[in-house]
């Protein structure tokens, strides 16, 4: 054995850097093993508690990783593009950028579990499978945020997506859930094919899969020191953008979003809106900033187009929907547009605003879909906007929390959503893209109408006489309380979160300077 190791040169591994991914994925596998061995002897809360504990451990590891950059590098590896450390032969680079996303994803998992636990029992869908898939998907997202190699990124993307395909189709007794699962899977597989083909073309064009190397080769090609097939490279870059556009639900790759959000079990939508979107945007920024930054001028117009289309379609189409989940799906499309506005100004202050927006949007989306989970009632069917009638009378606290989250999505002052818009618009204005700022703000006004519609139904319409009393159990209530606190606290004093986002951004930006 020793001889074999002597012959094959294994790359040096930074185990602490890899720990979050390994704990998350390992936690999923262990849970599956324990449950299949111990079977029914385990209490009902075990799987959920296990998932929360694992995610909290990941958050703890994230803090440890974040801190180590304050003390300088521990290990003698080359610096990765996000100011962290490249490891596993340059395939993974865990820096503050990745850690930010990792902690965000783990927090999303914790809150999703809080929402899902009660829901699963209500719908008689309980079992460890959901939690295993949730953790695996999050592990995939974490890999995406830290991948420094296109193949590793693809692996992360597939782990993330495959788990979510199953989660969407999880509600066995609802045909719309199955339908949404198939729809998401077919379109998602199609997008993955685009993504993979893009990777192949980029490899063909540049001769590398490593983000840092691609960036280096592109720089050298401008001086003639390296040859890059520009044609292949451009087509590959466009295909990657299509693949990512699908994951983050940007127009025109958004068509699946309303249908899937409507059909999928509500807690799964909590995770999709907050987690999948965050992972998708993290990977998008990472690839385009770390590898393709020399071609910023080439991809910026494409991002501009995606942003404007998402803002317009998301806010305008949201107005005419009659289902809360569809309304929120279109609102998530318009939020994707906002994040793309930040991405568009990525060379300036944009990346920090993307980070901030992802955290803020995660909170708002989790809270909003958690309310939907509560309201949707048995069978998860009750998602028509009329089911919210008179919620202010029936459940004043719930209505108040939902209103606050909706106002935050509209960017009203003293909510975290305001600062998210503030940062994104600053980024665009700083780059002198005034037309983009104006379009984005006009979209905000249109979207505000969409949120007000929900508020009107909750506060100004009387409740139907025969509406059964809503049960709000501890899990969703805790999750909603946490995100409401987050929304208000960082709405009034955003400085700490702004600084965190700034740190994640400045680390990412190292190689571009």
């Amino acid at each position, binding site marked *: 054995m020793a001889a074999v190791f002597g012959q094959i040169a294994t790359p040096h591994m930074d185990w602490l850097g890899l720990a979050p991914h390994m704990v998350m994925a390992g936690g999923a596998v262990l849970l599956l093993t324990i449950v299949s061995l111990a079977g029914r002897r385990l209490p009902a809360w075990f799987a959920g508690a296990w998932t929360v504990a694992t995610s909290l451990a990941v958050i703890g590891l994230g803090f440890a990783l974040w801190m180590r950059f304050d003390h300088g590098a521990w290990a003698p590896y080359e610096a990765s593009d996000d100011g962290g450390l490249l490891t596993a032969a340059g395939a993974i680079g865990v820096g503050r950028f990745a850690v930010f996303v990792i902690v965000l994803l783990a927090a999303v998992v914790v809150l999703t579990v809080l929402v899902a636990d009660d829901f699963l029992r209500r719908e008689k869908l309980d079992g460890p499978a959901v939690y295993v898939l949730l953790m695996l998907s999050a592990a995939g997202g974490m890999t995406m945020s830290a991948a420094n190699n296109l193949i590793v990124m693809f692996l992360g993307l597939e782990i993330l997506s495959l788990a979510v395909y199953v989660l969407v189709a999880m509600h066995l007794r609802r045909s719309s859930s199955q339908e949404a699962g198939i729809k998401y899977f077919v379109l998602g597989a199609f997008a993955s094919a685009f993504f993979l083909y893009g990777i192949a073309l980029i490899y063909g064009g540049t001769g590398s899969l490593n983000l840092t190397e691609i960036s280096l080769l592109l720089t050298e090609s401008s001086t003639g020191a390296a040859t890059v097939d520009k044609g292949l490279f451009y087509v590959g870059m466009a295909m990657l953008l299509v693949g990512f556009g699908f994951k983050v639900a940007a127009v025109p790759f958004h068509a699946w979003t309303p249908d899937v959000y409507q059909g999928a079990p509500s807690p799964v939508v909590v995770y999709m809106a907050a987690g999948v979107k965050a992972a998708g945007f993290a990977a998008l920024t990472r690839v385009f900033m770390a590898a393709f930054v020399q071609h910023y001028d080439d991809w910026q117009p494409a991002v501009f187009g995606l942003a404007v289309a998402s803002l317009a379609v998301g806010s305008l189409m949201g107005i005419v929907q009659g289902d809360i989940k569809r309304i929120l799906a279109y609102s998530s499309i318009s939020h994707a547009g906002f994040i793309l506005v930040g991405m568009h100004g990525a060379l300036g202050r944009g990346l920090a605003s993307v980070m901030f927006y992802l955290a803020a949007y995660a909170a708002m989306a989790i809270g909003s879909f958690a309310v939907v989970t509560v309201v949707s009632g048995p069978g998860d069917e009750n998602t028509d906007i009329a089911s919210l009638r008179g919620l202010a009378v029936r459940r004043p606290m719930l209505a108040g929390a939902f209103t606050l989250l909706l*106002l935050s999505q509209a960017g*009203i*002052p*003293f909510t975290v959503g*305001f*600062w998210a*818009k*503030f940062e994104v*618009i*600053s980024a665009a*204005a*700083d780059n002198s893209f*005034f037309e983009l*700022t*104006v379009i984005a*703000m*006009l979209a*905000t*006004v249109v979207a*505000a*109408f969409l949120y*007000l*519609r929900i508020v*009107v139904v909750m*506060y*100004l319409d009387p409740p139907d006489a025969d509406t059964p009393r809503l049960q709000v159990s501890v899990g969703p209530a805790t999750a909603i309380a946490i995100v409401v606190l987050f929304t208000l606290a960082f709405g009034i*004093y*955003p*400085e700490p979160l*702004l*600084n965190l986002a*700034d740190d994640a951004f400045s680390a990412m930006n190292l190689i571009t300077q």
Partner: protein
Amino acid sequence: MGAFTVLSLIIFLPLLGAVVIALTAPARSVVFKPVAVATSAVTGALILWLMADFDKNDGGFQYTQLVEWVSSAGISWHVGVDGISLFLVVLTGVLFPLAILACDPPHDAKAYYVWMLVLETGCLGAFLALDLVLFFLFFEIVLIPMYFLIGCWGHGNRKQVATKFFLFTLLGSALMFVGMLVLALLVVHETGEALTFNLLELANSVEELPIGTARWIFLSFALAFAVKVPLFPLHTWLPDAHTEAPTAGSVILAGVMLKLGTYGLVRFGLYLFPEASHYFAPLFFTLGVIGILYGAVVAAMQKDLKRLVAYSSVAHLGFIVLGIFAFNTEGISGGLLQMVNHGISTGALFLLVGFIYERRHTRQISELMGLQKAVPVLAAVFVVVMLSSVGLPGLNGFVGEFLILAGAFVAHRWWALLAAVGVILAALYLLWAYQRVFHGTPDEAATKMADLTWQEKLVMLPLVGLIVFMGVYPKPVLERMEPAVHLLIEHVEQVQGIESPTVNNRPHGSFVDLRELIKEHSYDHNGHDHDSHDHREGSDH
């Protein structure tokens, strides 16, 4: 309580009351109103103390407080009061307790008082903020309580009206949001200094910007304020919102919130963009005059008494805009004074219409008749308030309108002439309405009407008192405004002297005598005024 924190205390006191009410059990509903009245009354008392303590010779900002808030974005908790904002703060401090005292909500008292107090905090914060982002936060947050006040306690088509009100104002402020960020970031690019939204620092560096850019940014600000004022043709939300809002909501909407627009035009238009506001002055002048005439004509046609008062606001606010963009002491002081006057008299009118509605459940002019005999006290109060709104000499409206017309006349003669027609029209529609509602023989419903209760009299007494006091003796108000207005005009002229020395349609020799005449007849002025006045005359030639 140090002098440095008094403004923050004033801003947060109503919010504290709101929190107390929110945390009180719904069962103890009897305490909601006393707590709300007490909180706003204490706030009002504090504001009155502030007014008494205010140094009337200082034109700059007083009681300023500056605390770093979001330092990475250059935003600070920066508040201060000067002669321009002082009386708007006083107006807010006076109107809120009266409005809360005067009207009881028919249902959900807890939420109602919470929203009223939150609204007071928002209004006070907007008037006192000296940081662009801070101002914007307050400017926009007032929409939420007002949205719920109209939506939950309003009349008729309240759902659509509340949404329309919200979206209209949001549209304006959305572009202002862009303008604000662009302004601060461009100033950073030009000066190379750290990002800041401090109003005083930006006002000094804004001349570094290219003229064209500054004009665009000014327009984005002006649009937000024009919607709020509201200037013709952006006024369409106002009649609906005022008519459907509950009485207290209408009082605050007309009395205080519209002033956010005119105040914004002075503080963030004239002060921040002197060149651009001068360049666009003809536009605002024209829209102001159109508003005066249009508002008056449409008001005369109204069948609903409350809608009539609402349209009269369009006309009055037109006057204020006219005064502000006259770019002289008379016009701006008149505009500022008229903001306060309009707040008092229109607030009082909405209260009276509300009292009538509570008794008769109708606001249709055709269904009301002969109220004078039935409810003499209400009628008498109505006469005084109405005449103040018409601008009868001896009452407050006259002083403001006269100063505005005088200022406008020396600046843009023909517009002033047209605006003067609006004064006559105001007399026409208000007197006509009075005649139809109060004169004649009372019908059966009118004879059963009860006159004002002691509580309603208590509410109207300070308002009527102020109407008379400020009409007879406006000096205490004007002399506190004067230094700040002078400073503003000096700032405007100084910047313009650099940017566009040729633009000058200010008066020439022949009008100097008239100006002196106006000043002597309107109010006394101390030596300080003479000095700066002479200084300005010198700069004209």
